[in-house]
């Protein structure tokens, strides 16, 4: 279902070019890898630090963009690893292992695409939008408030929603509410088929899946799970799937997020089991 892996997986040493906040909560990291890397939207990389800051497990981050030898990420500080990452200054070494996992596919010929991105779920869909968008496609981004939104990345036709309509920069427009509700407000399921692509926190993914199911629209979601290795060798990152009737599914109801995902068809995920693991 997803776009498959593109090219080889590389372990490289990156040097920080920039590591700066682009909104109140989001930091953009630009790493120079010393050689060009290609990726497909939705793929991620495992990042780690070296020396005393080195983490037992590398951390997964979706790739925002690659320009020549520079690969970019967007992240939020949520714990020890991201706090350490935020302290890396230009010139510091960050190890890169990627691109990993599957991707969001190119747009289908026969239906428009609706993108739903929340917070740090932006990178895969930002990359998709830049590469593939057509006139009939729609992109929605949801942030916490006006200050949390990375406006500089959302200039090309993005529609923005915020949980609280505060701190909007001059001239910026946003809809107050959840990003999926913004989509629902503008588009109706009777308009004809669309493909929904979603990435963000689990409640957003579930709401996107529910909306798509109402219209019988296909929906692909990028799922975040804790990871150990990122390359399919530890089984530490599994996502619960619904049985398809295939006999082996009944015994092995899990797929690895890192190799078989992170992009899954929403209807394949066992959302109830997924919710229990959050």
């Amino acid at each position, binding site marked *: 279902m997803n776009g498959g892996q593109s090219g*080889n997986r590389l*372990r490289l040493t990156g040097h920080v070019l920039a590591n700066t906040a682009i909104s109140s909560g989001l930091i953009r990291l630009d790493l120079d890898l010393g050689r060009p890397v290609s990726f497909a939207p939705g793929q991620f990389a495992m990042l780690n630090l070296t020396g005393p800051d080195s*983490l*037992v497990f590398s951390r997964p981050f979706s790739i925002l963009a690659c320009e020549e030898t520079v690969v970019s990420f967007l992240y939020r500080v949520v714990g020890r690893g991201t706090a350490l990452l935020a302290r890396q200054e230009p010139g510091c070494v960050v190890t890169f292992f990627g691109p990993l996992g599957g991707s969001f596919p190119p747009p289908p010929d026969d239906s428009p695409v609706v993108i739903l991105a929340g917070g740090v779920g932006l990178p895969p869909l930002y990359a998709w939008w830049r590469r593939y968008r057509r006139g009939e496609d729609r992109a929605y981004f949801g942030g916490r408030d006006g200050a949390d939104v990375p406006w500089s990345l959302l200039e090309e036709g993005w529609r923005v929603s915020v949980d609280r309509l505060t701190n909007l920069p001059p001239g910026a427009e946003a809809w107050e509410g959840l990003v999926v509700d913004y989509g629902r407000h503008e588009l109706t399921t009777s308009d004809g088929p669309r493909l929904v692509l979603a990435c963000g926190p689990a409640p957003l993914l579930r709401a996107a899946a529910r909306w798509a199911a109402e219209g019988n629209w296909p929906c692909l979601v990028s799922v975040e799970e804790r990871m150990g290795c990122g390359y399919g*060798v*530890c*089984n530490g990152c*599994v996502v619960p799937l619904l049985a398809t009737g295939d006999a082996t599914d009944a*015994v092995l109801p*899990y797929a690895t997020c890192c190799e078989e995902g992170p992009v899954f068809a929403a209807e394949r995920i066992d959302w109830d089991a997924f919710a229990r693991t959050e």
Partner: protein
Amino acid sequence: MQLPDWWQTDPCQRFTLGPREIPGRIWTASGCFGYGLSGHDISSPEFASPYDGIGAVVTKTVTPQPRAGNPMPRLAELPCGALNSIGLQNVGIDHFVSEVLPELERLGVPTIVSLAATRPDEFGEMTRRLHAVAGRYDHWHGVELNLSCPNVAEGGHDFGRSAETVAACVAAARPHLPDRCLLAKLTPNVGEIAPLAHAAVAAGADAIAAINTVIGLEVDLASGQPLLPRRFGGYSGPAILPIALAKVDEIVCEVGAAVVGIGGIATSEDALKFFALGAVAVQVGTAQLRDPFATAEIARELSR
């Protein structure tokens, strides 16, 4: 690093373990490199492949039936190591023999198959299955019996905590491995490991693999509950290196058995410590998760 004078071994040279020549002494540990099939499209400026210099891949543990494994979360990172509770998710011996083993052979991956079961006769049956197809598999070098997994039949404790159980499992597998090596992987979660190692060797094991993970628990302070759904997990990584070294030393000194050292190896210095105590080979686990070239790098650094 500057290699010490006493270290004159080339770890990438073949060496004999029981009835078999193994391609090298630096291996990946069970559960930390999948079935050994996931590294072929990975490269780096320093290495053509993560398999460079690797003596053997010990596969994810395979059981008589497929196992779904435990619910998430399955991993918890701690400052000096990690807790895991994967729950032996695996495809089962039938699928392993029909699908995975041929692929490992085609790719030329030097393989040690890790097996776990709840009864000695199941170990016998699984090794018999492997023996039946052995003629086709030149890269399959042996079996590691995982005698250290939590098991319901023995009240949730590690299966291999009694010398009788260890002996019975090794004895059941040995007849089916006339020309492949047989390792018994032991639990560190016992007061003394030497009696278990002694039982394994007396029953025919060619070497002891030590150690498996140390039982541990992490509490999620927000909920006040254990973080892992099964409460306990297996502790691994740098924190367990001294525990592993002590257990290996006990086995070498008290039993004189060949030992494959495992536990907390992240650098070539760590690996050398096991060799200094007399280990014949080492395995790299948690460090291989962080970096697919961790084992290859250690093999390269220890080469003479």
